[in-house]
C-alpha cells in the first residue's frame, strides 16, 4: 500500500488534533472534575495513534499509545486527576508535537528522546500498560485490526461528472484496504443518471476517521459515513416531515438572493486584493453553495409523481377511442425540482393524448399492419447533464410527413422548394398554434394537436421539445427540462461592452474560434472541430454590435440534444451561479434572449436561450 500520498493528510490532521489537545488540557486544568476534556483528549490521542501506526511512525505511535493509556486510566477512574497529571499530559502533547514535526520535516525518529517521559507516563498510569504492543492494545474505541466495515459515500449533488468522482473516491478507498460489495455496481458510475451515492465494504486496519479523510481527499465528496454511522444515516434519511411548499419556495428565493450577494462579495473581495476578505468570501461562498445544494435537494421529487397519474388517464382515453393501449414508465426515480415537476404534467398529458389519438392505430389497423393489437406508449426519464429528458414514445403509425407537407404548403408555412421534412422542420410546423392534419375533430386532443402548448411550456421552463418519427413505426417526443428553475450555473460571455449568460447545461465545451477552420455547410458558416462541422453563430452579429471583434475569439459549443452550434463571442468571463429573474420580453427583442439576471458586480445581463441558437 502506497502511503506517501497520505503523509500530508496525516500531518495536517495530527496537528489539528494536537492543537485541540492543548485546548482540552487548558479547559481541564481550570476544572479538574470535568470529564468532557478527558474524553476529547482520549479520542484525539487515539486517532493520532491509529494514523501514526498506519503510517509507520513508530515513535509517534508509541508516545500516543502511552499517553492514551494514562488518559484511559483517568477516564476509568483508576487514576485521580491532579495538576501533576495535567502537567505530564501537557509534556506528552509537547513531545508528540515535536515528534510529528520531525515527521513533517522528513527527519529520522529518535526513540530515545522520550524515554524519561514514557517512564513518567507509565508510572502515572500505574504501569498497567507495560511496553507498547500496538496490535493488542488497540483502544476500545474503533481501531480493530483488519476490521471490515460498511462505507457510504455521497458525491456533491452539484459536482460535475459525479460518476468519475465516485470512481476516484473508490480508488482512494482501495488504497486503504480491500473493497468489496460496491453498490450500485461500478458500471453505474458511467451513467449520466448516477445520483452520486454508493456504498461498499472496506476491510483494513485503519480507523474510521482516516478512512473518511482519505475518501474526502478525492474531492467533491459531500458525505462519508463509516461503520455504524451508515445505518444511522440511512435511518435518519428516511425520517421525513411535511413542509409547506410555500416555505420551500421562500427559502429558495432567499438562497437565490444569497447567491447573488455571495457573487457580489466574491467580486469585491477579488478586486480589493485583501487576503482576509478573500478567505472569508471563499468560506461564505462554500457555505452558500452547500446551503443551495441542501435547499435544492429538499425541493427534489421523483418524476414518478407525475408519471403515476398517466396510466389511469391513458386507460380511460384509450377506451373512449376504442383502442387497446398499454402505458409503461421507467426512470420514475429520477428527481426534479418541485416547480419543474408541477409544470411538466400538462405538456406531457398533451403528448400522451396525442400519442393515443393520432399515434396508436385501432386494433384492426394494427393487426393489418402486422403489429400486436395492443399499442404501447413508453414514458421514460433520463438524466442528461443538468437536464432531464422525458420521452413519450408510441409504436403507432408515425407522423404522416406527406400530409403535413401538403398542408404546410397550402397555408404557406413551407416553401415550394422543400421536398423532405426534417424532424426539426416537422416540429416547427406542428408547433404552430392550431395546426392540425386531423381530418376529424376528436374529443380527445381536439382540433389542434396541443404541440404548440407543449413547446411553449418547454421554452418557458428553459427546456426544449423535440420529435423523431418514423412512418409505420411510431413517434418519440422528447421534453428536456432543467433540474431546477431558480438557480442556474452559467458561462458568462462578453461581446463589445455587453455580457451574456449561457446556461452551462447546454455548453459542451469551449474551443478557439479559428477563421481558418471555417467552412460552409448548406450555405451556413461552420467551424470544424475534430473533423465535425459545427454551424457558427456570431453573437456580435446577432445582437447588432458594431466595430471589430478581437483577433482571438473563443467559440462556445452549445449542445441541445443532437443539435450543436458554435457561439462565437469576444471573450469568456468565467462561470457564475445566476438567479433567473422573471422576464417580460420587450417587443423586438431577439427570440434567443430567454431571461435576465443580475451579475456579481450588480449589473444586469441577459440569458441566452441555447435551444433557440442551435
Amino acid at each position, binding site marked *: 500500500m502506497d502511503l506517501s500520498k497520505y503523509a500530508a493528510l496525516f500531518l495536517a490532521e495530527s496537528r489539528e488534533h494536537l492543537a485541540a489537545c492543548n485546548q482540552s488540557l487548558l479547559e481541564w486544568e481550570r476544572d479538574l472534575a470535568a470529564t468532557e476534556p478527558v474524553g476529547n483528549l482520549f479520542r484525539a490521542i487515539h486517532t493520532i495513534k491509529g494514523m501514526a501506526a498506519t503510517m509507520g511512525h513508530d515513535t509517534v505511535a508509541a508516545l500516543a499509545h502511552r499517553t492514551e493509556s494514562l488518559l484511559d486510566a483517568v477516564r476509568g477512574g483508576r487514576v485521580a486527576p491532579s495538576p501533576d497529571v495535567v502537567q505530564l499530559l501537557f509534556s506528552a502533547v509537547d513531545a508528540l508535537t515535536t515528534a510529528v514535526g520531525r515527521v513533517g520535516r522528513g527527519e529520522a525518529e529518535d526513540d530515545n528522546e522520550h524515554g524519561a517521559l514514557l517512564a513518567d507516563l507509565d508510572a502515572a498510569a500505574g504501569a498497567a500498560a507495560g511496553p507498547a504492543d500496538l496490535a493488542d492494545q488497540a483502544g476500545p474505541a474503533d481501531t480493530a485490526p483488519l476490521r471490515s466495515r460498511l462505507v457510504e459515500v455521497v458525491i456533491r449533488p452539484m459536482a460535475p*461528472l459525479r460518476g*468519475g468522482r465516485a470512481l*476516484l473516491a473508490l480508488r482512494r478507498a482501495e488504497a486503504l484496504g480491500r473493497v468489496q460489495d460496491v453498490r450500485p455496481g461500478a458500471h453505474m458510475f458511467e451513467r449520466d443518471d448516477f445520483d452520486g451515492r454508493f456504498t461498499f465494504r472496506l476491510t483494513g486496519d485503519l480507523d474510521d476517521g482516516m478512512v473518511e479523510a482519505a475518501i474526502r481527499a478525492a474531492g467533491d465528496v459531500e458525505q462519508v459515513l463509516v461503520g455504524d454511522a451508515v445505518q444511522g444515516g440511512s435511518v435518519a434519511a428516511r425520517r421525513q416531515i411535511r413542509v409547506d411548499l410555500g416555505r420551500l419556495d421562500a427559502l429558495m428565493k432567499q438562497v437565490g438572493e444569497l447567491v447573488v450577494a455571495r457573487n457580489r462579495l466574491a467580486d469585491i473581495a477579488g478586486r480589493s486584493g485583501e487576503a482576509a476578505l478573500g478567505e472569508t468570501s471563499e468560506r461564505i461562498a462554500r457555505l452558500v453553495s452547500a446551503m443551495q445544494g441542501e435547499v435544492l435537494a429538499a425541493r427534489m421529487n421523483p418524476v414518478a409523481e407525475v408519471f403515476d397519474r398517466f396510466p389511469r388517464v391513458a386507460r380511460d382515453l384509450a377506451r373512449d377511442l376504442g383502442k387497446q393501449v398499454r402505458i409503461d414508465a421507467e426512470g420514475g426515480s429520477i428527481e426534479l425540482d418541485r416547480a419543474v415537476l408541477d409544470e411538466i404534467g400538462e405538456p406531457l398529458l398533451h403528448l400522451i393524448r396525442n400519442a393515443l389519438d393520432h399515434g396508436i392505430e385501432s386494433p384492426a389497423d394494427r393487426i393489418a399492419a402486422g403489429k400486436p393489437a395492443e399499442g404501447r406508449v413508453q414514458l421514460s426519464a433520463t438524466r442528461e*447533464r443538468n437536464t432531464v429528458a422525458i420521452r413519450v414514445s408510441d409504436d403507432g403509425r408515425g407522423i404522416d410527413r406527406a400530409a403535413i407537407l401538403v398542408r404546410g404548403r397550402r397555408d404557406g408555412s413551407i416553401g415550394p422548394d422543400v421536398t423532405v421534412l426534417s424532424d426539426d422542420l416537422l416540429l416547427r410546423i406542428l408547433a404552430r398554434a392550431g395546426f392540425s392534419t386531423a381530418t376529424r375533430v376528436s374529443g380527445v386532443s381536439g382540433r389542434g394537436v396541443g404541440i404548440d402548448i407543449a413547446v411553449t411550456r418547454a421554452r418557458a421552463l428553459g427546456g426544449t421539445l423535440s420529435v423523431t418519427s418514423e412512418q409505420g413505426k411510431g413517434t418519440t417526443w422528447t421534453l428536456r427540462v432543467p433540474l431546477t428553475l431558480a438557480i442556474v450555473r452559467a458561462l458568462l460571455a462578453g461581446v463589445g461592452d455587453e455580457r451574456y449568460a449561457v446556461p452551462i447545461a447546454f*455548453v459542451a*465545451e469551449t474551443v478557439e474560434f479559428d477563421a481558418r477552420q471555417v467552412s460552409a455547410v448548406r450555405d451556413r458558416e461552420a467551424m470544424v472541430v475534430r473533423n465535425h462541422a459545427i454551424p457558427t453563430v456570431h453573437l456580435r452579429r446577432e445582437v447588432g454590435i458594431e466595430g471589430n471583434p478581437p483577433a482571438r475569439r473563443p467559440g462556445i459549443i452549445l449542445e441541445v440534444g443532437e443539435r450543436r452550434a458554435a457561439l462565437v463571442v469576444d471573450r469568456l468571463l*468565467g462561470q457564475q451561479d445566476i438567479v433567473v429573474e422573471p422576464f417580460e420580453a420587450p417587443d423586438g427583442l431577439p427570440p434567443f434572449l430567454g431571461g435576465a439576471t443580475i451579475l456579481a458586480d450588480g449589473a444586469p445581463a441577459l440569458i441566452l436561450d441555447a435551444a433557440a441558437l442551435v
Partner: protein
Amino acid sequence: MGHSVLVCDDAIFMRTMISDILSQAGFEIVGEAESGVQAVQQYRSLRPDLVTMDIVMPDMGGIDAVREICKEDPSARILMCSAMGQQALVVEAIQAGAKDFVVKPFQPSRVLEAVQRVLG
C-alpha cells in the same frame, strides 16, 4: 522550483489557458502536446511531475495516451480535462490510470484543487 507539467490538448486556446493557470500558480510548463501520440513521446523524454490530458484528441485519443503512459510509468500523475457529459469517458480514463479530472469550462480554482490532489 515548481513541479514540471506537460500540457496535452489539441486546442491552442485550451493549452494556453491551462498553461496560464498553472504557471501563475508556480508550475513550470515543460512541454505541450496536441495529439495522443505526441503526449506519449513527450512524456517519455520529459518525465514531467504532472500531465494534463484532454480526452478527445486526434492521433490516439487522450485515454489511449493515458494507458500507454501508465504502462511505461505506473506512477505517472495524469489529470484529465473533460467536458460536461463525458461521464463514461472520464470513468474509462480513470480506469486507464488517470488520477483526477477537471471539467471544461475551467475555473482556475478547480484546476488547482485537482492538481493539488494529484500531486498530494
